[in-house]
């Protein structure tokens, strides 16, 4: 569906409205997610963090069409950097994030410089190769830095030079990441991630609306033509790659902030594939799509995978005994250990019927409603459109 990724001129006023609604929706998430059992800090944090990851990925894939299959490497690098910051210098979340983003940007610059010599499938394979390299090195030769499969964790005896200089010697217990004395745990930690998500979304919105974003979109539609008009496309692509790497670094360091532990499995190809799925499921090249995709996949992973037979039988409890049992057994295939199956079916349906992702579905629905209203003669203004 080409129409929804086309450049869409917007007015500052409309953008402001989008931001206001988005902010309100994100900050009230603990309330409106409660009925579906998703309103607990850990999952809310994950929504925000993987939302950031997917938004960043979308800047590369959605705008330029370059499919990176190794983005999880930057996520892992961000996490490791942040945890090392915690260990060596300070438990301050901002420092750790800044360092995580910086290191991820450095890696993205080098990896991007090499991988962007090719495009299409070759680019995807090159990025995949780099990510697998990072993953396997984290598991083998880099074990002193990454602590291998056991994962890098904090220790009471860590140096934490800055913290000790300011606060004196540490207590007996492990410290939590903090924001100038405010401990980031539970819901506080979610709101911290939420603010980061809003900022990340705002930057992404600005990029989408900027001439830079327009150039990236132009490259997606025809890079040769761009080059004939006198643009050197490589630097633009590299900048897009680095920005999206920095988003991944931010997401990775936030993962470390919410849970100070960094494991190599964050860099595995399945994690890279996951962000591709999130983006495509939600709608590549759209502003909100990747966020939806991230939320849906994380919801499935955390809620569906935890349903077991007892709970299912309870759900179907209103039916006659035999029937409830049978229904529970059938639906058990799709939840619990089988949550991948549900996700797979959903992904297939979306790709077959809504190639533009869930956003295309929303777009079609709103278009239909609009048509109906127009034919009915009642045009109502003021309704906020999702920013296609």
């Amino acid at each position, binding site marked *: 569906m080409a129409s929804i990724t086309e450049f869409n001129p917007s007015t500052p006023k409309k953008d402001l409205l989008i931001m206001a609604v988005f902010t309100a929706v994100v900050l009230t998430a603990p309330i409106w997610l409660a009925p579906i059992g998703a309103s607990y*800090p850990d999952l809310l944090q994950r929504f925000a963090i993987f939302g950031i990851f997917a938004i960043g990925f979308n800047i590369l894939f959605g705008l330029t069409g370059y499919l990176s299959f190794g983005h999880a490497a930057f996520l892992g690098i961000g996490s490791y950097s942040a945890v090392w910051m915690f260990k060596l210098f300070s438990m301050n979340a901002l420092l750790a994030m800044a360092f995580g983003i910086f290191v991820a940007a450095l890696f993205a610059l080098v990896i991007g410089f090499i991988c962007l010599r090719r495009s299409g499938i070759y680019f995807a394979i090159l990025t995949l190769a780099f990510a697998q390299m990072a993953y396997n090195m984290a598991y083998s030769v880099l074990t002193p830095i990454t602590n291998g499969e*056991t994962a890098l964790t904090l220790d009471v005896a860590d140096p934490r030079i800055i913290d000790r200089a300011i606060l004196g010697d540490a207590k007996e217990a*492990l410290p939590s990441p903090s924001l100038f004395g405010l401990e980031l745990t539970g819901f506080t930690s979610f709101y911290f991630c939420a603010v980061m998500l809003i900022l990340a979304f705002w930057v992404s919105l600005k990029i989408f609306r900027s001439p830079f974003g327009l150039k990236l979109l132009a490259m997606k539609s025809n890079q040769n033509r761009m080059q004939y008009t006198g643009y050197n496309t490589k630097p633009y692509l590299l900048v897009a790659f680095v920005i999206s790497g920095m988003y991944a670094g931010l997401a990775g360091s936030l993962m470390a902030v919410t*849970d100070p532990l960094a*494991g190599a499995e964050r860099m595995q190809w399945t994690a890279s594939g996951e962000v591709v799925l999130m983006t495509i499921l939600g709608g590549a090249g759209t502003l909100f799509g990747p966020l939806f995709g991230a939320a849906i996949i994380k919801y499935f992973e*955390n809620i569906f995978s935890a349903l077991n037979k007892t709970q299912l039988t309870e759900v179907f409890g209103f039916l006659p005994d035999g029937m409830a049992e049978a229904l529970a057994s059938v639906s058990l295939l799709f939840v619990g250990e089988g949550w991948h199956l549900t996700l797979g079916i959903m992904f297939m349906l979306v790709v077959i019927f809504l190639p533009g992702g869930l956003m295309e579905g929303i777009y079609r629905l709103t278009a239909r409603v609009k048509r109906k209203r127009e034919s009915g003669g009642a045009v109502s203004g003021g309704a906020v459109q999702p920013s296609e």
Partner: protein
Amino acid sequence: MGIFDGKTTRRRVLKGGAALAGGALVAPTVFSRGAWAQNFRNDPGDSGSVTFGFNVPQTGPYAEEGADELRAYQLAVKHLNGEGDGGMLNTMKPLALKGNGVLGKKVEYVTGDTQTKSDAARASARRMIERDGVVMVTGGSSSGVAVAVQSLCQEMGIIYMNGLTHANDTTGKDRRRYGFRHFFNAHMSAAALGPVLKQEMGTDRRSYMLVADYNWGWSVEESMTKVTEDMGWETVQSVRTPLGAGDFSQYLTPVLDSGADVLFLIHYGKDMVDSLTQAVQFGMRDRQANGKNFEIVVPLYSELMAQGAGKAVSGIYGSSNWLWSLNNEGSQAFAKSFGQEYGFPPSQAAHTCYVQALLYANAVESVGTFYPVEVIKFLEGFEFDGMGNGPTLYRAEDHQCFKPVLVVKGAENPQTQFDLLELVQEVPTEQITYPHDLYPGDLGPYEV
């Protein structure tokens, strides 16, 4: 998408208001936490039920173990609630449980998939603690996961009863006040296996080790190397292999030319099934090296692995925490009720998990409160019997259980697919006991 239509309806305002009001009611108790000692996270209070969290691998290389652990937990819940034949509640000594739940509250449970990944396991444990309000988390089939979840539970102030974890770190370097382990560990395996290997294979052996590359593999490697080298063996080489590798041929080929005559397969679960099957396919069992029969040793053995590897296990030595065929009251009671429920005997993973669930419940019943500090103090130094391993002590200094260790061997002529392992020796507790500061660690505070 209704979320983005920005309309404020009356219904929504009411909903939001209700949620805020709910939050306001909860808030004071959140902030005053710790103001008086009995106020603790996930206190079941006056509720008629209490929730346990079973966090086991349902996917990945240890999925088989995870499935068996979950069966055992479900059985434990039944027995605690007074359903079924009661299993070990009939044999456990001392026993405070009455078969009417825990402190009169019906036991319920939630489950989660650790995926054998630290990240996923912690996410799943946090879901249980933050959303489902569990009083205790238990499970895990990998020491990497166990250590990660155990430290999380320490931070959260929720007791973690380790399931199958065999690394020394779990109750050594990474021991935690809120974490307890019933299963034995790498040090005990090595101490028990050493003398048997010496007797069977002599003192002049050259060994080669394939090691699962994470904290469990490392600690078995460390303990086995120390014990075998102390009795005169030489370690030719030790190679670390990734978890869930699937194909181990690239690691097995070099073994043939290395001049080694004993191969240690420090793998577990499906990895061990794969590597052992491949080693046998390579003809290692029939080989001669240095004029001796080539031998394979699997330091941590289990029935599930033996079933997976089939005939390949016959004659291969290893150590085990428990066997269903043990001839004591507790084991028989458990094997019987497990068999009746599921139609096949339980594995050692199932046993340790079942026992852990009962031990926690019994501790709560004994002290009369779910307040974790009291429960921990009760379990520290707790001595019990009738749980299948003979007299057992929960050592206070590192929260490790001390009990006899089994040295087992793959049966030469198994009668059924459940008799694949035979008991060689029950090594007494004294022989495998070590000082608690051998692997130094810090338990941390009671109050968090």
